[in-house]
């Protein structure tokens, strides 16, 4: 079926397409994305790139889909339903990348949010090595937002440069990492730092204590926006990463400007995580996370802007930031 843009029905209902793998346990992949979009009252569509058998203990099987099948799913959605926001997740092999890149161009998708999935939260490698340079070359120029965690971003840059970048030792090193990624194409780079603990001198420490802190960062090519918070030794919740990018995409679909969309998504994730009972088993932590997520109207808070060259950690900043999170 030949696409015909002029025939697409006009609608006020926000829509969003996710292109990602399937996580049967419902905590990641298109399943997580659809839950987040539904919670934001955004109509979600999903193109499967692979089927995975996974649960809170790990991944036992990956069933990749042929690029032509991915193509057919994308065409079925975008040739019929108007959509300008696409979230990209797991891409298991490099062959699917040109298909996706061409579709983004063909259907004039303006807001692309990507969450690279190289290593799962439990350490499993999720994609073939050639996938990363192909992603950088073909998809990054399309990106409005790239969102990930520090560890994942480091590996991305490492495999892209084909040599090890300087090891991350301090907060400025992470800022530099974000600059490198920004030059690869995304207009906004978002890194969640919950894996990394800083000491009072802004050095990364392997032995966090009660005074250690961490931060989520946004970089728009000019300024760094920093959300400082106490370092929490609790392991991350399965599905956090997917939820963040899906929430950003949902906010964009609701016509919220990019910086605010990212900001509100970060807050909604933080708000939801605060409400998860720590004693729950891993699957039910994910379940509570999705239940707590919702539209940005639930949350309130102001954006905090800090120039990178003048940044000095302040004790009261944490309390100011956390006070924006409803208790």
């Amino acid at each position, binding site marked *: *079926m030949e696409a015909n843009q002029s*025939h*697409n*029905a006009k*609608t006020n*209902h926000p*829509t969003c397409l996710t292109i990602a793998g*399937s996580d*049967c*346990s*419902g905590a990641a992949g*298109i*399943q997580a994305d*659809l*839950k987040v979009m*539904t*919670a934001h*009252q955004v*109509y*979600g*569509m*999903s*193109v*499967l790139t692979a*089927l995975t*058998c*996974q*649960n*809170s*203990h790990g991944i*036992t*099987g990956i*069933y990749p*889909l042929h690029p032509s*099948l991915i193509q*057919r*799913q*994308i*065409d*079925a*959605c975008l*040739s*019929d*339903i*108007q959509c300008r926001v696409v979230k990209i997740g797991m891409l298991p092999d490099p062959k699917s990348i040109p298909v996706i890149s061409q579709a983004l161009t063909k259907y004039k998708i303006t807001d692309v949010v990507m969450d690279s999935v190289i290593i799962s939260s439990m350490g499993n490698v999720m994609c073939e090595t050639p996938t990363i340079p192909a992603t950088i070359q073909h998809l990054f120029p399309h990106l409005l937002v790239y969102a990930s965690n520090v560890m994942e971003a480091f590996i991305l840059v490492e495999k892209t440069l084909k040599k090890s970048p300087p090891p991350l030792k301090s907060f400025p090193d992470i800022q530099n990492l974000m600059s490198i990624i920004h030059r690869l194409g995304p207009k906004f780079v978002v890194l969640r730092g919950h894996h990394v603990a800083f000491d009072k001198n802004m050095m990364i420490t392997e032995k966090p204590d009660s005074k250690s802190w961490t931060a989520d960062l946004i970089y728009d090519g000019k300024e760094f926006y920093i959300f400082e918070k106490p370092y929490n030794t609790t392991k991350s919740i399965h599905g956090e990463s997917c939820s963040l990018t899906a929430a950003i995409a949902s906010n964009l679909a609701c016509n919220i400007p990019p910086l605010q969309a990212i900001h509100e998504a970060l807050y909604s994730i933080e708000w939801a995580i605060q409400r998860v009972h720590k004693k729950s088993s891993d*699957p*039910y932590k*994910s*379940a*509570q996370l*999705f*239940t707590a997520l*919702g539209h940005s109207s639930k949350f309130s808070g102001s954006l905090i802007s800090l120039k990178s060259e003048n940044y000095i950690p302040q004790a009261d900043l944490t309390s100011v930031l956390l006070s924006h999170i409803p208790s």
Partner: protein
Amino acid sequence: MISTCITVAGSDCSGGAGVQADLKVFTAHSVYGMSAVTAITSQNTIGVNGVHLIPASYVEQQISACLLDVHCEVMKTGMLFNQQILKVIVESIDRFKIKKVVVDPLIATRKGALLVMPDYLELFVKELIPRAEVLIPNIAEALIILKHMTNEFVEIHHLEDVKAVGKKLIKAGCKNVVIRCDDIPFASDFFCSRETNMPPTWYLYVLCTSEGEVLLPQKWLASKTARGTSCALSSAVASNLAIGLDLVTATQNAVSYTQRALEMSFHLGRGANSLDYASALTRLPYEKGEFINFVRYHPSITPKWLSIVNHPFVEQLKAGTLSRLPFQKYLVLKYHMLINNAQAAGMMAFSSSSISAIEHSAKIIQAIKEENVTHLRICEQYGLSASQITKSKPEIVKSHSLFIHDTAQQDGLRGIQIAMLPFVFMIQEVVSQISASDGYPYVAWVEHCKDKSATSHIETLLESLETNSQIISLSKVQHLLGILEKSLDFERLVLDTSSSNESSVF
């Protein structure tokens, strides 16, 4: 413990059906959804243009990954595509001892065109149906399954024919069945409207169990058709079962949810409408100014109201053939119930903390006083003296008194207003339709009921309910529906008592 549910179905990339629709429905109910994908379909609002089957062994791996890790008692099955996958599902149900399986057959279109091979149908009936807590076919599928199980056929002309199909399926071995009458609008008399050229009124869902049938009619929405209603209904039933509700309540809630999603459906592509799966989220299930319509047409209310409208007493009242004695009994019972309402309002005034609230209760009492003066005068015209009416208090009136006092105590003014709605419905939908011409035996009563000035307090009641309906919670809505149900039960009891030869109320 968070409620969980797993769906086993195909993938619809456009999000309107399949596991995608199911996950949206689960999320709307705050149920944690898991999914095993049986096939990748490329489809949109216009149709399906490709299907890629997943090997049965991989379907099994997906199910195992979920159920070995997360406690789950409810499974919903959708499009299973072939016998190999169907066998894997059956084995998984047994292996993981799934307590409640909700089966959306997906074996035929609403027109009756078969979607599966005969061998699949054979296995489906033999192995999956016995394990299903509830089967949710459209009427065409129900007939196909019935023929396969019993070699019987039922022509559908009336609601009773649908019930007959359900009964036969139960008798043939199904535990429970919810029949969706897709594509068949019913008229107000429950005959197929296309056969009788009557305007469409109802979209029918019928829940059939071994204990009987539960009728769940919904308003026919002529301008609204959408993809995915079978996914929405079966997933919503599964969600409510996962939450822990019994099947009847689960089905009522699911029908209400599906109807709401259909009412709020929107146009995205060039083909069918898309259901609004998220419409149940946090929002009240009615728009401003629509609260009374919502409660009036709620699936738990409509059957009770219909049993009143179709009661022989009401039928005879409308036809003018109702004899005097039952009518006299009715008037007497109505008198006492109004007194109960006045007493309840007095109780509320007593416990009110503000003078304006006391004033409000006083107005109710005043309105009832004026109504009763007229009521007694009308009773005299039909051979009832005031002393006959007031001297005794029938047992049913005492029960109603307890009910109305409890309602006032727990729910205040709004509770009483809800409890008085059956009276309003009777005026609006029954009495106002009576053309009291010469020869009609109760002209004075009908004229009084129609008199605007005499029933102005009804308008006040409705306006007050509507005004305050936007500031209550979802659980409160559910509670108020319960009050209305009980109030309708009393209304029905009044009709039964009035019609009974054994009863004596004066």
